[in-house]
């Protein structure tokens, strides 16, 4: 099993897609309710596996293009088939996943095994009959959107119009139509004329869930820009600019690096957006640009370790974050296979661990605590014992129920609320 690089539920929550470093996509499907096996409701089993991207070699630059899947985004379902977009650093692909459970038999011109029948043998015409067969799930690439990004794609986002989507790399954002693969429109370009002057890159972008003309993008300097595509074709000038003023007392050489936003997500309501930087998660009200309305500390105990984390490159880890269906809770990952959930109403938070050792299937997860100094209580873990190789970068929350998917390196964990 390869390292999981993205996790995403579809709109109904019945399907869960994961992408990995080897370019594979694995889709899980939720089991239907079954009276004879009441406990199997809610279990996700493998539905389809396919190779989405292959490693490529760019001959012009003598560089490899990794096949790692950076992002998967589902399209809203319009017919029996399911569609998703998956992307690596350079190319986006639209995949159709469809089921086949019937087979036609009784063709006139060919045998059951496909050989052409001798015309002289055909004495009468018959109508082919559909017969049931074992369920087969097929994945086929329907569109390939290539050659539009010089830099590495970090985000894709499907528009609420269900016809267009955006793709963002370090310096540019392009707008695509799902039906058109040979053309995309550049809507944001922050590449300076002189690359020496480059000090800021785009780190994430997303369309507003309801307003098809609005999108946001975040930067490595901790800012978020909201753009309205109605104002101009090239959205280099933002409509809104979100930035929290820096706290001068906590300024260090690492201030900029830890302020770099690794993920931005609109709430389902469209009223708020959430950003993840290295140490915290912030919730912003779209109507207030000068500071977030809520800030949650994910692992503040790492602040005094920033130099070590810079040395081993962990400070550049890009954590994602997600909302629950009702926008009342948010979740994000941390180190040591810990992940954190924050309840926005009660202001309570919890730290849980995704590992085989600490939890058996169907056992209730035990809250974890990191000891920050002084005496270590029983069951607490000290900061120095944390395993920084075990990082939870990708998490997803079911759109309607309290089911979460947590990717811990090459393992996928699915947790749900305890059902009595």
């Amino acid at each position, binding site marked *: 099993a390869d390292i999981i690089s993205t996790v995403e539920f579809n709109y109904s929550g019945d399907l869960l897609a994961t992408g990995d470093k080897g370019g594979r996509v694995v889709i899980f499907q939720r089991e239907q309710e079954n009276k004879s096996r009441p406990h199997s409701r809610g279990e996700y089993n493998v539905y389809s596996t396919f190779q989405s991207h292959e490693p490529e070699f760019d001959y*012009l*630059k003598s*560089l490899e293009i990794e096949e790692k899947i950076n992002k998967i985004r589902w399209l809203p379902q319009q017919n029996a088939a399911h569609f998703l977009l998956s992307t690596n650093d350079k190319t986006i692909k639209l995949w159709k996943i469809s089921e086949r459970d019937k087979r036609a038999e009784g063709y006139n011109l060919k045998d059951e095994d496909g050989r052409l029948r001798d015309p002289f043998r055909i004495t009468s015409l018959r109508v082919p009959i559909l017969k049931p067969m074992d369920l087969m799930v097929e994945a086929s690439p329907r569109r390939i959107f290539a050659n539009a990004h*010089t830099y590495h794609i970090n985000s894709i986002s499907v528009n609420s119009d269900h016809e267009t989507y955006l793709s963002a790399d370090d310096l540019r954002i392009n707008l695509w139509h799902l039906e058109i693969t040979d053309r995309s429109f550049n809507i944001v370009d922050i590449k300076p004329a002189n690359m020496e002057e480059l000090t800021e890159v785009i780190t994430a972008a997303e369309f507003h869930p309801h307003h098809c003309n609005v999108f946001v993008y975040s930067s490595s300097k901790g800012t978020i820009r909201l753009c309205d595509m109605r104002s101009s074709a090239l959205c280099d000038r933002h409509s809104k600019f979100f930035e929290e003023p820096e706290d001068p007392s906590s300024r260090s050489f*690492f201030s*900029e690096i830890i302020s770099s936003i690794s993920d931005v997500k609109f709430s389902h309501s469209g009223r708020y957006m959430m950003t993840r930087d290295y140490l915290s998660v912030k919730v912003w009200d779209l109507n207030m640009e000068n500071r977030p309305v809520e800030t949650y500390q994910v692992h503040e105990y790492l602040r*005094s*370790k920033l*130099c070590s984390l810079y040395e081993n490159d962990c400070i550049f880890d890009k954590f994602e974050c997600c909302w629950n269906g009702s926008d009342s809770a948010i979740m994000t990952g941390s180190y040591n296979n810990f992940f954190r959930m924050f309840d926005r109403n009660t202001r309570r938070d919890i730290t849980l661990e995704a590992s085989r050792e600490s939890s058996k299937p169907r056992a209730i997860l035990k809250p974890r605590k990191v000891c920050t100094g002084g005496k270590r209580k029983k069951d607490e873990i000290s900061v120095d014992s944390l395993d920084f190789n075990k990082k939870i970068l990708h998490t997803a929350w079911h759109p309607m129920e309290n089911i979460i998917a947590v990717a811990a390196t090459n393992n996928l964990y699915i947790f749900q609320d305890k059902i009595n």
Partner: protein
Amino acid sequence: MFVRGLKRKCFDGEEDIEGTLTGIKAIPSYNLQRQSLLDMSLVKLQLCHMLVEPNLCRSVLIANTVRQIQEEMTQDGTWQMINTQSTGQASLDRLVSTDILCRSSKEQAEGKHVSGYSTFNKDFEGDQTQDSSETMSTASSVQAPRNLQSNVWEMENSQENKGNFQKSLDQIFETLENKSPNSVEDLFSEVDNSYYDLDTMLTGMMSNTKMGHCDGLDTFSSPAPTTSNSNCKSDLNELDHIVEILVES
């Protein structure tokens, strides 16, 4: 990416420095921290040139950190154009070998590293290049206090016990500053440079990078960017041929 353990404390608790002002002892300690951070950052930047394209975000963040440190050191007056004269030829060889290792094979094929080397050679002998980057002018403005500080610098060096490694890292930084204008760009735009060079060779071929510079309205009306993409593909054989020539030369 190989993740190293956290054994080395590496001066965590930078913020504690303000609270522990014990006279002269505190100041070199902060400078040591800062220098160590600078060294680390430079090594990270140097190691960016690998087979897979380096992470641009990471490079930008590290470069910004380096710039920050440099600015602060300039303000402090501790920024050293370093003992280029005093270290002699011995370190030069080591520096050059690092330099060659760090360049991509493409650039070596194009003979770029040769020009970079000769420029460095010129600087080493004390010639001022016509480089107009702001970093260069900042650096030259602090050359005056350098001599005064050099004794302190030597003392610090022996205290740190880092020796040659310390000095050659500083030289790497200087090299980055003093090279021909294109080379500082290389930190980010090695990719772009190769596109640009091929562009000048093959007339009429629009590269992907230029797509973004189109006027807003043009992107909607003109199909030019898309046809250039298909041209890119069909010209691939031509490009392969040219690349072969470059490699052979």
